[in-house]
C-alpha cells in the first residue's frame, strides 16, 4: 500500500499528460454538462485505439471506477497486463491492489450470504422461521441473532395489556395466538418425528387424519380427484393459514394421491448469554419450551431488548457485574437509555471522555472506572432521569456536548431535569418521554462566544416566563426568571421543562425561534422574537415560513404576524375561510417558488411583504379576489420572465421550467395539469378572462359567452359532496359543514344570470368578481395540492372535491385555521371521504399520510410503517432538483464510492480502520461501531458495508478524506478536483442543500439539509416522525444511483418519488425502529433500477452486475 501511495501522484500526472489538451478537456466538459456516456465513449475509444497506451487505459479505467461502472474491473485488468508487459511491475502491483479493493466491496451474486457468526448459544423454535416470523410479526429476513430481539420488542409493545378486573397485565390476542401457534407447531414437530420432515405417502396414509386434526381441517368426500380440505376446527385452521402452512399443496397431494413432504426442521435462534441466564439457571426440560417461557414474562423480554442494544463487551460486563434480579428491575431504563452505554477494559466510556469521568461519577454515585457499577448506579439513581440525560448528551458531538459537559453546568442541568419527584421516570411510558430533552440537546447552538444562542435577548425569555399571555408555565420557574443573568439560566429552565410531557411550550418556542435564527443572515431583533414567542400558541405552525428565506426582514416577519391576526378577526366563517385559505395558498406558493429557486433570494422578502400587505386590507369578497389576483401577479413576476398566460406561467413555475423545456419539465407539468383537471379546478385564464371581459363590457365589448359557458360547464361538473348518501348516513357526519357549504355555494353560482342582471352597470359588473373569490381560492389551493401530490395520488384522482373540501375552520369548538394540516374523516361512514383540515403548514406531510395506505406492500409484515412513510414521501416530493448540476450528483457518487474504498482498506489496514471507526462513531451506536470493527478485523469488508448506511458512508468519506493527504485514490483526487474547480457549487453546504432532507418537525424548516445526526428512536409525541426525519440516507443513495446511471439532474424530480414508492412497498420490517429493513429495501430497489436501466441500455453498461453504491 505504501508503495502504491508513493507512486500514485506520478500516474495521475502521467495519465493527465498524455490525455492533456483537447481530449481531457473535452471529457471534463462533457462530464460537467452531464453527457457522461459521450465522455465514456471518448475515453473508451482512446483506450481501444491505442491498447498499449498506459495513460489512456488508466484514464478509462479510473473514469469507469469513478462512475461505479462494473466494467472498471476489466479495464483495470487490461491495464495491469499492459503494465506488466512494459515491465512496470511496481505500478502493476499497485493497480492490482486497487482492483483487489474494488473486488472486496463488490457483491458477488454467486456467493451465498455470510450470516453473522455471533457464536452465541441457540434455542430451537419449532417449525420453519417463515411461519414463526409471520405469527410473531417479525421480518422473514430476520437473522438468528435478531429473532429473539425482535420477538422481545413485539412482546413488550404488543404482548400485554392492562387487565379489566385488576392491575395485573393480561396477554393480548396477539400473544395468545403466538402461544397457540407454538403449541400447534410442537404437535407438528412430533408428527414429523426424528427426520423432522412431515411425510404423507398418499391420501390413505394413517397419518393423514392426525395431520389434518392438528391443522384443523378435514377431507370433504373420499380420497380421489374430488378431495377438498375444509375447516373443521376454526382456531387451528386459522393458525394453519396465518402461519403459512402449505395447506393447498397438501390438498393437491391428497387429490392426486401423491406424497406430501414438508420440511419441519426447527428454527434456531441465538440467545444472549445462553438460555439458562434468562430462566434463572433452571434448565428447561424441553429446550423447545424456552420461547414459551420467555414470552410469558414481559420484563424478561424488556431486559433482553435492553441487553441486545449493547456491544458484546459491555453486555458481558453488565451481566457479570449486576445481579439478574437487580438489572431486571431497571430493564425499562436499560432498554430506552442504554443504547449509548459502553464499557472498555472494565471502565465506562462516558460522554466527554476521561476529563468528564469524575463529573459523571459524582452524579451517578459510582466511579466510571468500574463500568458495571457505574451503569448500575446510573440506572438505579432516579428511575431513569440521569440515564436519559446521559443518553441525550452521549448522542451528540462537538462544542455543544462540551458546553453541556462542563461539570458545574452538568450538575445544574441534571438537577433541573431530575426535579423533586422522580417517579414516574421517562422510561415508564410506552415511548421515551424525554423527547424534548433530546431535541434540545440536538438542536442547541452556540454563539461565537461559546455561550448558547438565545434568540432576541435574555429579557425576552424572562418576560415570557413571567408574563406569558397564556398564563404561567411553571410557578418555580416564573419566580426564578426574574433573577436570570446568563443564557445558562434559560437553558436550565428549558431542561427543567423538558421533564414535562405537557405545557413545555417555551421549549418549543425556543427551538422554533432558534431554528428561524439559524436560517437567517442576521439574528432576529429582540422585539420580533418577543412577538414570535407570544404569538407562538396561535401561529407557531406557520413559523417554518420564516425559515424559507434567509433574507426576510424583521419588518416582514412582524407584518406577516399582523396579517394573520387581522384575518383571524374576520367574523363571517365562510368569508374567513376563503380569505385565510387564499392567503395561505399564496404564501405556500411563495414558499415553493423560493425553495426551488424560482424566486431569487433578493426578491423573497419584498414578495412576501407584498402578499401580507394586500391581504391586510381585505374586507369583502371583491377585495379578496383582487388581492388574490394581484398577489398571483406578484409571484409570477418574481418568478422571472416567461411567456404565456397566468395559468401557463404558474404551471410552468411549479414544474420548474417553461413549456418546451426538458422531458422532465413537461412530464411534471402534465402531472400538475392532470390533478387540476381531476379536481375540476377553474383555470386562472378563465377567471381572469371573464373579469377582464366584464370590465370591458361598459366600453362596448361583447360578452365572451364561450368563456362564461366554459366556467358554467366546469362548475356543473363539481359533484355534490355526499349527494348519494341517505339521510341516516348524512346524519352520521359530525363535521364538514363549512366545506359542504363552500362546495354547494360554488355549484349554485350563476354567472350568466348575474351578468344579465348587471347589464352595463360598470360597478355591478365589477361586483361579479366577488363571486369568483372562492373559485380563485380553490385554484390556488389546487396548485399546492398538485405540487405536493404523492406518487400515485389516488385520492386526488378519485375524490373530485378533495381540494375544495379542504377545511380551514374545522369542527365546531376547535381552532384549526392556523394549526398544522391534519387528515380527518379516515374510515367511512364518518365522512364522505377523508379530507384535510387546518392550515397548509404541513400539507406535504398530510397528503403523504393520507396516501400511504394506497401503497401496496410486497411483503406480509408491512403494518409497522407509522410516520416513517409519510416523511419519506415528503422527502421525495418537497425538494426539487432542477438547479442541481451533474457535477454535484457526481460528487455525491464519488463520496459513496470513496467511502466504500475506505471500508475496503480498513479491512486490511488497522490505521485506516481506526480513522473510519472514529468517524463512524459520531453517527452509529457503540454496538454497531463495535460490530463493524469486528467484521472488518476479520477482513470482511462486504459484510461491514452492509452495516453502514449511505449517509454514514458519505460522512465517513467527507470526514476522513481530507485527513488522508497521501491517499492516491482516483476517487479522492476527483473529489478534490471538482471542489477546486467550483468551490461555490461543490461544497458541503451546497450538497447539504441539494441532497439533504426537509425536517419540518426537527428543524422547523422545509429547506433540505444534511444534519448527520444519529438516527433517533421513537419518541413520545412524535412516534417515529423524528426518527424518519433523522434518516438522511435515501436522497444520498438516489443521487449516487443517478450518478452511476448517468441520469440528467432534472430526471431526479420524476425518479426519486417513483423509487421512494418502491422502497416503501418493499420494506420488510419487524418494528418501528427497524431502519436496517429500510436499508435493505433501499439497496434492493437500487439493484432493481440498475438491472432495468442496464437491460434497457445494453450499450451503456455491458454487465448488469455489481452494486457499487451500497
Amino acid at each position, binding site marked *: 500500500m505504501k508503495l502504491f501511495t508513493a507512486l500514485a501522484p506520478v500516474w495521475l500526472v502521467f495519465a493527465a499528460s498524455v490525455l492533456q489538451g483537447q481530449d481531457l478537456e473535452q471529457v471534463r466538459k462533457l462530464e460537467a454538462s452531464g453527457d457522461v456516456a459521450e465522455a465514456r465513449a471518448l475515453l473508451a475509444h482512446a483506450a481501444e485505439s491505442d491498447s498499449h497506451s498506459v495513460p489512456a487505459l488508466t484514464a478509462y479505467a479510473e473514469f469507469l471506477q469513478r462512475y461505479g461502472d462494473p466494467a472498471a474491473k476489466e479495464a483495470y485488468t487490461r491495464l495491469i497486463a499492459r503494465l506488466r508487459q512494459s515491465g512496470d511491475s511496481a505500478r502493476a502491483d499497485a493497480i492490482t491492489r486497487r482492483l483487489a479493493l474494488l473486488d472486496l466491496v463488490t457483491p458477488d451474486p454467486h456467493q451465498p450470504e455470510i450470516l453473522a457468526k455471533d457464536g452465541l448459544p441457540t434455542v430451537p423454535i419449532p417449525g420453519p422461521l417463515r411461519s414463526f416470523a409471520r405469527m410473531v410479526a417479525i421480518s422473514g429476513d430476520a437473522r438468528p441473532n435478531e429473532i429473539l430481539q425482535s420477538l422481545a420488542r413485539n412482546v413488550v409493545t404488543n404482548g400485554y395489556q392492562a387487565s379489566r378486573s385488576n392491575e395485573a397485565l393480561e396477554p393480548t390476542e396477539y400473544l395468545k395466538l403466538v402461544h397457540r401457534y407454538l403449541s400447534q407447531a410442537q404437535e407438528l414437530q412430533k408428527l414429523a418425528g426424528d427426520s423432522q420432515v412431515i411425510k404423507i405417502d398418499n391420501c390413505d396414509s394413517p397419518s393423514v387424519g392426525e395431520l389434518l386434526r392438528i391443522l384443523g381441517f378435514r377431507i370433504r368426500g373420499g380420497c380421489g380427484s374430488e378431495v377438498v380440505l375444509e375447516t373443521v376446527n*376454526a382456531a387451528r385452521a*386459522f393458525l394453519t393459514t396465518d402461519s403459512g402452512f402449505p*395447506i*393447498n399443496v397438501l390438498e393437491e397431494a391428497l387429490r392426486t394421491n401423491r406424497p406430501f413432504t414438508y420440511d419441519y426442521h426447527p428454527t434456531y435462534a441465538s440467545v444472549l448469554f445462553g438460555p439458562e441466564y434468562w430462566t434463572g439457571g433452571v434448565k428447561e426440560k424441553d429446550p423447545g419450551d424456552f420461547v414459551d417461557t420467555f414470552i410469558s414474562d414481559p420484563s424478561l423480554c424488556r431486559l433482553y431488548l435492553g441487553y441486545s442494544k449493547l456491544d458484546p463487551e459491555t453486555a458481558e460486563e453488565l451481566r457479570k457485574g449486576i445481579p439478574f434480579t437487580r438489572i431486571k428491575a431497571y430493564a425499562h431504563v436499560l432498554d430506552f437509555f442504554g443504547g449509548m452505554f459502553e464499557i472498555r477494559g472494565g471502565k465506562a466510556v462516558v460522554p466527554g471522555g476521561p476529563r468528564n469521568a469524575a463529573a459523571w461519577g459524582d452524579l451517578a454515585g459510582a466511579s466510571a472506572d468500574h463500568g458495571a457499577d457505574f451503569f448500575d448506579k446510573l440506572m438505579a439513581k432516579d428511575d431513569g432521569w440521569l440515564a436519559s440525560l446521559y443518553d441525550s448528551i452521549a448522542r451528540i458531538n462537538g462544542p455543544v456536548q462540551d458546553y453541556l459537559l462542563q461539570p458545574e453546568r452538568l450538575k445544574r442541568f441534571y438537577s433541573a431535569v431530575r426535579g423533586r419527584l422522580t417517579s414516574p421516570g421517562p422510561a415508564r411510558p410506552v415511548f421515551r418521554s424525554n423527547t424534548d430533552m433530546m431535541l434540545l440537546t440536538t438542536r442547541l447552538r452556540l454563539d461565537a462566544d461559546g455561550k448558547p444562542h438565545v434568540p432576541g435577548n435574555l429579557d425576552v425569555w424572562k418576560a415570557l416566563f413571567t408574563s406569558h399571555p397564556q398564563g404561567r408555565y411553571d410557578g418555580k420557574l416564573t419566580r426564578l426568571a426574574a433573577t436570570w443573568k446568563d443564557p445558562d439560566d434559560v437553558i436550565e429552565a428549558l431542561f427543567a421543562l423538558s421533564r414535562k410531557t405537557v405545557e413545555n411550550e417555551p421549549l418549543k418556542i425556543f427551538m422554533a425561534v432558534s431554528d428561524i435564527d439559524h436560517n437567517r443572515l442576521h439574528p432576529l431583533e429582540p422585539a420580533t422574537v418577543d412577538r414570535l414567542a407570544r404569538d407562538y400558541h396561535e401561529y407557531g405552525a406557520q413559523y417554518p415560513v420564516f425559515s424559507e428565506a434567509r433574507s426576510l426582514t424583521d419588518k416582514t416577519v412582524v407584518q406577516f404576524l399582523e396579517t394573520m391576526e387581522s384575518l383571524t378577526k374576520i367574523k363571517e366563517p365562510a368569508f374567513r375561510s376563503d380569505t385565510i385559505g387564499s392567503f395561505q395558498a399564496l404564501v405556500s406558493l411563495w414558499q415553493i417558488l423560493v425553495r426551488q429557486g424560482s424566486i431569487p433570494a433578493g426578491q423573497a422578502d419584498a414578495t412576501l411583504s407584498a402578499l401580507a400587505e394586500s391581504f391586510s386590507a381585505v374586507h369583502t369578497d371583491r377585495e379578496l379576489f383582487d388581492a388574490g389576483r394581484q398577489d398571483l401577479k406578484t409571484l409570477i413576476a418574481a418568478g422571472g420572465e416567461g411567456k404565456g398566460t397566468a395559468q401557463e406561467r404558474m404551471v410552468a413555475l411549479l414544474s420548474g421550467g417553461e*413549456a418546451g423545456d426538458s422531458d422532465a419539465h413537461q412530464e411534471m407539468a*402534465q402531472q400538475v395539469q392532470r390533478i387540476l383537471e381531476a379536481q375540476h379546478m377553474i383555470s386562472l385564464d378563465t377567471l381572469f378572462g371573464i373579469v377582464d371581459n366584464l370590465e370591458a363590457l361598459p366600453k362596448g365589448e361583447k360578452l365572451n359567452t364561450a368563456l362564461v359557458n366554459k366556467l358554467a360547464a366546469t362548475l356543473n361538473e363539481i359533484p355534490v359532496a355526499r349527494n348519494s348518501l341517505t339521510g341516516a348516513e348524512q346524519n352520521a357526519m359530525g363535521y364538514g359543514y363549512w366545506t359542504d357549504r363552500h362546495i354547494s355555494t360554488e355549484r349554485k353560482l350563476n354567472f350568466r344570470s348575474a351578468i344579465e342582471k348587471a347589464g352595463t352597470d360598470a360597478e355591478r359588473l365589477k361586483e361579479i368578481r366577488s363571486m369568483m373569490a372562492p373559485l380563485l381560492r380553490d385554484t390556488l389551493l389546487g396548485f399546492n395540492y398538485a405540487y405536493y401530490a404523492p406518487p400515485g395520488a389516488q*385520492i386526488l384522482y378519485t375524490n373530485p372535491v378533495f381540494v375544495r373540501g379542504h377545511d380551514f375552520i374545522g369542527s365546531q369548538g376547535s381552532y384549526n385555521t392556523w394549526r398544522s394540516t391534519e387528515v380527518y374523516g379516515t*374510515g367511512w*361512514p364518518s365522512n364522505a371521504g377523508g379530507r384535510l383540515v387546518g392550515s397548509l403548514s404541513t400539507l406535504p406531510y398530510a397528503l403523504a399520510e393520507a396516501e400511504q395506505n394506497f401503497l*401496496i406492500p410486497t411483503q406480509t409484515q408491512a403494518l409497522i410503517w407509522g410516520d416513517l412513510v409519510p416523511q419519506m414521501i415528503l422527502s421525495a416530493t418537497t425538494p426539487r432538483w432542477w438547479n442541481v448540476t451533474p457535477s454535484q450528483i457526481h460528487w455525491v457518487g464519488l463520496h459513496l464510492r470513496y467511502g466504500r474504498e475506505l471500508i475496503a482498506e480498513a479491512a486490511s489496514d488497522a490505521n485506516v480502520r481506526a480513522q473510519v471507526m472514529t468517524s463512524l462513531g459520531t453517527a452509529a451506536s457503540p454496538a454497531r461501531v463495535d460490530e463493524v470493527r469486528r467484521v472488518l478485523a476479520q477482513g470482511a469488508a462486504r459484510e461491514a458495508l452492509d452495516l453502514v448506511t449511505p449517509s454514514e458512508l458519505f460522512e465517513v468519506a467527507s470526514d476522513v478524506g481530507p485527513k488522508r493527504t497521501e491517499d492516491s485514490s482516483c476517487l479522492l483526487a476527483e473529489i478534490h478536483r471538482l471542489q477546486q474547480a467550483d468551490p461555490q457549487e461543490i461544497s458541503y453546504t451546497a450538497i447539504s442543500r441539494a441532497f439533504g432532507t426537509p425536517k419540518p418537525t426537527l428543524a422547523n424548516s422545509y429547506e433540505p439539509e444534511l444534519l448527520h445526526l444519529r438516527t433517533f428512536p421513537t419518541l413520545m409525541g412524535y412516534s417515529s416522525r423524528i426518527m424518519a426525519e433523522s434518516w438522511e440516507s435515501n436522497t444520498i443513495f438516489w443521487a449516487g444511483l443517478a450518478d452511476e446511471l448517468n441520469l440528467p439532474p432534472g430526471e431526479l424530480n420524476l425518479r426519486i418519488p417513483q423509487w421512494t414508492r418502491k422502497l416503501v412497498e418493499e420494506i420488510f420490517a419487524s418494528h418501528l425502529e427497524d431502519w436496517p429493513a429500510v436499508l435493505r429495501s433501499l439497496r434492493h430497489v437500487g439493484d432493481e433500477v440498475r438491472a432495468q436501466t442496464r437491460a434497457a441500455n445494453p450499450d451503456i453498461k455491458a454487465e448488469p452486475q455489481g452494486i457499487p453504491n451500497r
Partner: protein
Amino acid sequence: MTISRRELFGITAGGLLLRAQDQKRPIFRVKVDMVVLSYQVTDSKNHYIKGLKPGDFRIFEDGIQQKISTFAEGSNTPVAVSADGSTRPLLDAKQETLPGMEKPDAFVGTNVFVLFDTSNFMYKGFVYAEDAITDFVRGLDGADSVAVYTFSRNLSRAASLTHEKSDAIAGLRKSVAGDDTALYNALLLTLRDAAKVPGRKVVIVFSNGPDNASMVAPDDVRAVAEDEGIPIYVISTSEVNKDPISSNVFRRLAQRTGGKAYWAHNWQKQVEALEDVREEMSNAYTVTYYPAANPNEGFRKLLVEVVNDPGKKLRVKYRPGYRPSRTL
C-alpha cells in the same frame, strides 16, 4: 373498460376538445373508447333467459342508439356483429375496425378479481370465508381468469390474475390476518388493476362491512367502477341489519355497477352467494360498441332493451351509465 380508440377517430370524429388554445398547451380530450357492457336477462320468476342474439337487443346512450360491435353469451367466444345484425367469428373480422379487440381471446371468459377482507373484523370468520372462496375459485369456468387480493389497511396482491386456479388458491391460503379495514381504498386499487386488463371483468368483495381506515368514499369508488364497466359483487359476512349504513353502501355499489350484494353471515350462505355470482357470470351477455357522437362529457345514461318483449316481462340488469374518460 377504456381502450383508447382515439387513433381511429382522430380528434374530429368524437374526441371533444376541451382546451386547445395553442399547440404547446396541454390538451384534455374526452376519449372515445370501446365500451364493454355486460348484462343479464331474467324473466318474472328470476330465471335467466339464455340464447338471445345480438339482434334481440337495442343499446342506447342518452337515448342515442348504439351499434353493437361484438356479442358474447356467458363464457363463449365473442362474435363480431355486422351492420345488418349478422354475426361472424371475431377472428374473421377486420381487426382494424375493432380497436381494443386485437386480442379476442381476452374476451373469452371473465377476469374475476376476488377482494378478501383479512382485517380484524373478519378474524372469526376468516377460515370459513377462505373455504368458501376456494370452492368458488375451483368452480370457475375454465376460460375464466382469477386474481386474489387481500386487504386490511393496505392491499396485498396475494395472487395475480391467472388461469391457473391452483395458483390463485395458493395465494388465498397464504393470507395473513391484519388490523384496520380500508375496504374502499382496497376496492379502488383493485378496480384500477382490473381496468388495465382487456375483456370482461368483475370484482367480488368479501368483507363484513365496517370500514375504519379508507380515505376515499364508497361513492367515488363506485364511480370508477361505473366508468370502467366493472360490476361489483359484495358478499357481506355481516347481517343486513347489523350495520345499516354499510348495508346501504353495499347495495348502492352493487346496483350502480351492475353487480349484486349478498348478506351471508355463515359459511353455507357464503357458498350460496358465490354460487349465485357464478350463475350471474355464466348467464351474462357481453356486448361491445363504440359510442356514437355525443356532446355529453358527463354521465351518459345507458339503456338496454330487449326487442321482442311485448309484455315487458323480461328484466335486464345492467349498470345505469358511465362517464367517458378524459386524458391529457
